[in-house]
């Protein structure tokens, strides 16, 4: 009897212990929770890195997508026809491709910036200047992200605000409002950086060498503002007057003067860095990442000749001719090429965020449309000489705007080759029809459509949702 009682007690105590609610507390092994992160002083560095990792990842897909849309490159996936048709033939696919990634990825950046700003504002560890510096860092990236959203989706508009509650629909605004909101974010970044003391409360990677203090980083902010204001001016965004009118081009000139333009080193500027180290990202355009990434054949005949008869030095530096043409393998005809990229061929090659060469070309554009035509021609010639080893431009102060635009777009095409500019440029100057179509069925796109998932959740109300 005593042993039976003992047995019953053992069973009862095992049962009680087994049923303790404490045993139901199980951590999340796979991802840190918000509380874990908030409690960790080192987390600010990691989330700051997260913002740049996002921007870097988006840069790769931006170049790859706009490179195809702008007829700078092909990406052959012979066994997935839609990867070609979506970019070259249409119709755009609302469930995949550039229209989707140039939406979701940038708003994801904006959400991360929103969370980062909240964490900074709530921090009890950071000093006020440190907070200002951190907010200046993130707001600058926010202005850049919005610039990309509107550069891709243009007239369809979109939201500009991240709401605390992600289920709420952020108001839809038009193209101009997005451009202006992007500028507001950059200006807010400028204000914060100016009050940001001498150092960030986290480190910036080697791609920001020379720009890793609030003062240095402010120059990056101003460079991005120069690019944005040039877009605003060329589109005649609300507040800029008619397209190509001087108001906003004046701002471009101011922005550039506060930036880092170095005529002696046109490659100077902040870069996205890549690495072959485990866990890091490789340059997504490198041969090591994509064997199917090749240049559009028009890049050879369109390159101007140096005085010795060689092609534009930028062509020689960035492009090579293959032994025999390649193609997607038969399923999709008409897009063979023998031109291949030298630029970005190494998996650790950096990709510029924005550089002096772009700033110089932005200044040429701004000078022309603000009346400083000799200055504009002189800027173009610096680029032609330094980068292209080409004779001076035949432009004169008497040349037409159209002639200038044609000359400018040539320089931008070869100077900023495969940096995500050409498709944007031909649209903002209204010459989308100058893009070469390989076969008659091919088309060009003015703006990228809104993703299906965004349409569905907004009852198909946004433009392009149909």
């Amino acid at each position, binding site marked *: 009897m005593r042993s039976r009682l003992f047995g019953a007690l053992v*069973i009862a105590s095992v049962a009680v212990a087994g*049923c303790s*609610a404490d*045993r*139901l507390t*199980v951590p*999340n*092994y*796979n*991802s*840190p*929770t*918000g509380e874990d992160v908030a409690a960790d002083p080192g*987390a600010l560095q*990691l*989330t700051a*890195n*997260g913002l740049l*990792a*996002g921007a870097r990842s988006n840069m790769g897909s931006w170049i790859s997508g706009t490179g195809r849309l702008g007829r700078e490159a092909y990406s*052959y996936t*012979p*066994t997935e026809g*839609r990867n070609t048709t979506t970019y070259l*033939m*249409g*119709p755009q*696919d609302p*469930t995949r491709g550039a229209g989707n990634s140039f*939406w979701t990825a940038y*708003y*994801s*950046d904006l959400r*991360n910036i*929103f*969370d980062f700003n909240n964490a900074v504002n709530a921090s009890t560890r950071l000093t006020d200047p440190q907070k200002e510096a951190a907010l200046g860092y993130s707001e600058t990236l926010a202005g850049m992200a919005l610039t990309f959203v509107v550069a891709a989706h243009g007239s369809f508009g979109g*939201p500009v605000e*991240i*709401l605390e509650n*992600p*289920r709420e629909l952020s108001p839809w605004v038009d193209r101009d409002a997005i451009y202006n909101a992007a500028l507001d974010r950059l200006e807010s970044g400028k204000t914060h950086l100016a009050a940001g003391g001498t150092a960030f409360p986290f480190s910036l*990677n080697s791609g920001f060498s020379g720009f890793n203090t609030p003062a240095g980083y402010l120059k990056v902010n101003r460079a991005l503002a120069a690019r944005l204001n040039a877009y605003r001016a060329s589109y005649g965004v609300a507040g800029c007057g008619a397209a190509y009118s001087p108001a906003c081009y004046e701002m471009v000139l101011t922005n550039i003067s506060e930036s880092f333009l170095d005529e002696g080193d046109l490659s100077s500027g902040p870069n996205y*860095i890549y690495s072959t*180290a*485990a*866990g*890091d*990202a490789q340059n997504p355009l490198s*041969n*090591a990442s994509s*064997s199917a990434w090749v240049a559009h054949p028009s890049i050879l005949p369109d390159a101007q000749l140096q005085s010795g008869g060689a092609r534009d030095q930028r062509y020689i530096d960035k492009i090579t001719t293959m032994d025999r043409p390649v*193609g997607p*393998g*038969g*399923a999709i*005809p008409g897009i063979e090429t023998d031109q291949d990229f030298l630029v970005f061929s190494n998996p650790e090659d950096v990709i510029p965020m924005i550089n002096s060469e772009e700033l110089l070309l932005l200044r040429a554009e701004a000078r022309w449309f603000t009346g400083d035509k000799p200055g504009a021609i002189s800027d173009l010639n610096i680029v032609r000489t330094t980068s292209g080893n080409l004779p001076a431009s035949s432009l004169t102060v008497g040349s037409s705007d159209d002639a200038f635009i044609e000359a400018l777009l040539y320089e931008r095409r070869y100077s900023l080759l495969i940096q995500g500019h050409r498709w944007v440029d031909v649209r903002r100057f209204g010459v989308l029809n100058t893009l070469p179509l390989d076969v008659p069925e091919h088309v060009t796109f003015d703006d990228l459509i809104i993703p299906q*998932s965004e349409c*569905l*959740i907004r009852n198909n109300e946004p433009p392009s949702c*149909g």
Partner: protein
Amino acid sequence: MSRFIVGIAAALMLFLPQVAHSQDRSITGRVTIQGTTLGLEGASVVVPSSPGVGTVTGNDGRFTLRLPAGDVAVTVRALGYKQQQVTVSASQATLDVALERDALQLEGLVITGQATSISRQNLATSVAVVNAEDLTRAPSASLEGALQGKIPGASINLNSGAPGGGGQIQIRGVTSILGSGEPLFVVDGVIISNAAIQGGMRTITSSGSNQDDPANRLADIDPSLIESIEVLKGAAASAIYGSKATNGVIVIKTKRGEAGRPRYALSQSFGMSNASKLLGSRRFETADKLVDAFVGPLAPGATPEEIAAHNAAAAVYRDNYESPYFDYQDALFGRTAPMFETNFSVTGGSEATKYFLAASHKEEDGIMRNTGAMRQNVRLNLDQIVSDKITANVSTAFIRSGNDRGITGNNNTSSVSPLYLFAYSPAVMNLDTQDAAGNYPENPFVGGGPRSSNPFQTMAHVRNHSDVYRWIGSGRLDVTAFTAAEHDVILSAQGGLDWFQQADDIYSPNFLQYEPANGRLGTAQEQTTRSRQINASLNAVWKYTPSPGGFLSFISSATTSGGLQLEERDFNRYGVLAENLIPGMDNIDQGRTAPFQNRSAIRDQAFYGQEELLAFDNRLFVTVGARAERSSVNGDREKLYVYPKASGSFRFPEVAKGVDELKVRAAIGRSGNQPRYGDRDLVLTASTQIGGQNSLRAANTLGNPDIRPETMTEQEYGIDASFLRSRLALEVTYFNRTVTDLLLTAPLPNSSGLTQQIINGGELSSKGYEIAVSATPISNDWLDWRSNTSFYKVKQKIEELPVPTFRSPSTGFGSAYGDAYLTEGYSTTAIWGNKRFEDGTVRLSPIGDATPDFTMQFANNFLVNAFTFNVLVDWTNGGVRSNLTQNLFDEGKNSWDFDHAAPNGDPRPLGQYRYEEWRNGQNAGMYLQDAGFVKLREISVSYDVPQSLTSRLGGSISNLRLSLAGRNLHTWTDYWGMDPEASNFGSNNVARIVDLGQYPPSRSFHFNISMGF
């Protein structure tokens, strides 16, 4: 190995106490099938008045039983047969009983609780039972295959034809969008894992997640060791399993020991399989035709430059054209693959100690080169009567499974996947050849170089291997704590452990043509998964049996039970991916490495109580019960969620002439489905490293700290009737289930910066009928014909959805090909896609439904003397499939019927017509096709060699059976693809609709010889 375990078992028996019952005599006998001379193996012979006295018949139906003195009532029963009670007189020394086959399967016990069961006759819910004989008639790659066509109300499909299994069982429709969609599997009381672990094939094919065509771990269970399978379909039946039971419970009981001298059974199968359907590809009669197809004709009046360019582009086709057609698919998948299986078992013991020990080994080659699977099981089941109050059962199995599945399915990099490549590569040169050094030719088509591949080279060298070691064990202790005249109280403790380790090994050597398609030469991945599941319960059962004459004597019995249950499930998958390998090396330290890990741990606690009442001469059976459960995966971990149930049945005898019995039954029950591990947490996620540092970003999916289980409420009504002295029986069940508080990955506006959030909300319904008709059209001295026909139809609807239309996670490839877009008011399994309207607009519209209109099964069994014939036909009517395989072949200008005439007099060749009319996805209906089929699932004939012959072979052989069987011998279907059942994403809650170059299906033939001695 097996001799070792026999030794252990024998040694154990020496130490186990023998039971001292007042047994003073022994009888021997034989149980046969009525109308035949066939012995019935596995029948129970028990003495109801003396618990613990009983045995199970062995080979040829023979048994030995020790009996108390005097006249004794003995009950003989077996699954699938009507039970019989006979009185053995005090002087009787032998007993022969013939059991009548029970077409309705009314008899046998079905579990109703953790420690209770009821005769099937009284059951108030529809429970399907599949017995050993039905399971093993025609061997199958895995248990799913063996169950196909045998469970009304379940849709059972294999995901591909790969050896070693991989399939899905879905009972009574969709119950969950995000939670688990598969039934719970319980083997001898152990809740086992049926995880389908993605092996890592995607590291080579870049196919994205959930497309590795893995085997699910049900494949480890050897059907030959199973005694019976009960399928608890409805919530009222499955509620005893609480929040994992929404999808039904499949209760597997393995074979157990029989008292007596050791009896041995040996079974040997030889089989072979070959492809049941391959597609072939387009013939190119001349090189010019090839050039025309892939480069296009030269325009008239072309300039010299254009001619030169045309010739340059055409060169690769002209230079490599060898012949109009090589049958690549026949070369790679066309072999006749052998298989063999050996099973050995021994059973015996005393009345007090019974053992069952079995070992099996199965090996099957796949029809694709260098693929195959193997499985070894060793099982030891012990039953011990410790004293007249205590019984103990132990069940253990050690399992090893191995698999080489090759490369199949989707492909997002160069054409690595063989079928994918065949879709695009014109079959005009011999790729299946090697030079003196053993090198395969390079495939110059589809872009050539690393953008293309030679599948023969790939399959000769690539490795996609998995190896599983598994231990499943359980124990049960029943203690009769209290016995009085009308009362019995039994305490029962049960516990089980399922532990396995799966190692997946991927290797793609540097020299393969497609390397380095991803920029990094060679790939090696080692992945280890460890899974541990423990469940334990303590139960108390009070059985009250009023004595006759009292005022409660209308009650036959009242059983009250209660108890508590614990469950733990731990899962840990980790590994290392290595790329840029040093040539010839497949160790993961020989390249650029990336480690990965994923873990989960789930803890559940539950409490339950249940009352079962049998009254009015066993005509009325009523059950009420409730289970309260809490779990670590819920937002509120301490909150108890309650799942009540109630059911009742009443049997009317002889309600009309010719109607033997009519039973009406009704049940209502509630069960749940848990959130996934981590759904409750708001997390950040590690992004890539940058500048040598880690980075963190917000997770795209927002967790929900308030998450709770989804709840299914089900009503089930049924009528069971038997007519004409059980020559005809009918079972009709109607179910109506509603799932509320659905677990959803609700879409967030992408412009919020997040993509989805885990929420509870919305409501699904699923209503349907299951009808089973069993008949014995002929039963006479020379022929016994049993026929079973079942019918199942389900209608499903999204009654309410708190969010706008969104795509179900990993079901399909979006609106261009048809996908499940969940929309309020529409069928749950509606397939939506881009549809072109007459005004030229294209809108996302419902264009099909994945759920068949109905399914029917026809099983016929003929017994002619010592011969048994069986035929099982499975009919699925309707249901659509997104045929991406055809889309690939058409895009590659390479489908076998490309040059056939297009419909409606369209001048384009058929393949071009289809591809162009698909309009780059603007007309998704083009590749969405009816996937209905009729399959000859099983056909078998067996011959029981008469005793008169076996005795001449050797005195010790007690029975000898020879059989021939075939599985999936023929499919009648209009479906264009290889198999209307194939699924690129494997198991899928909502709709398994994508056919994308899966491992081709096969048919198999088997010869089996089995004997007992």
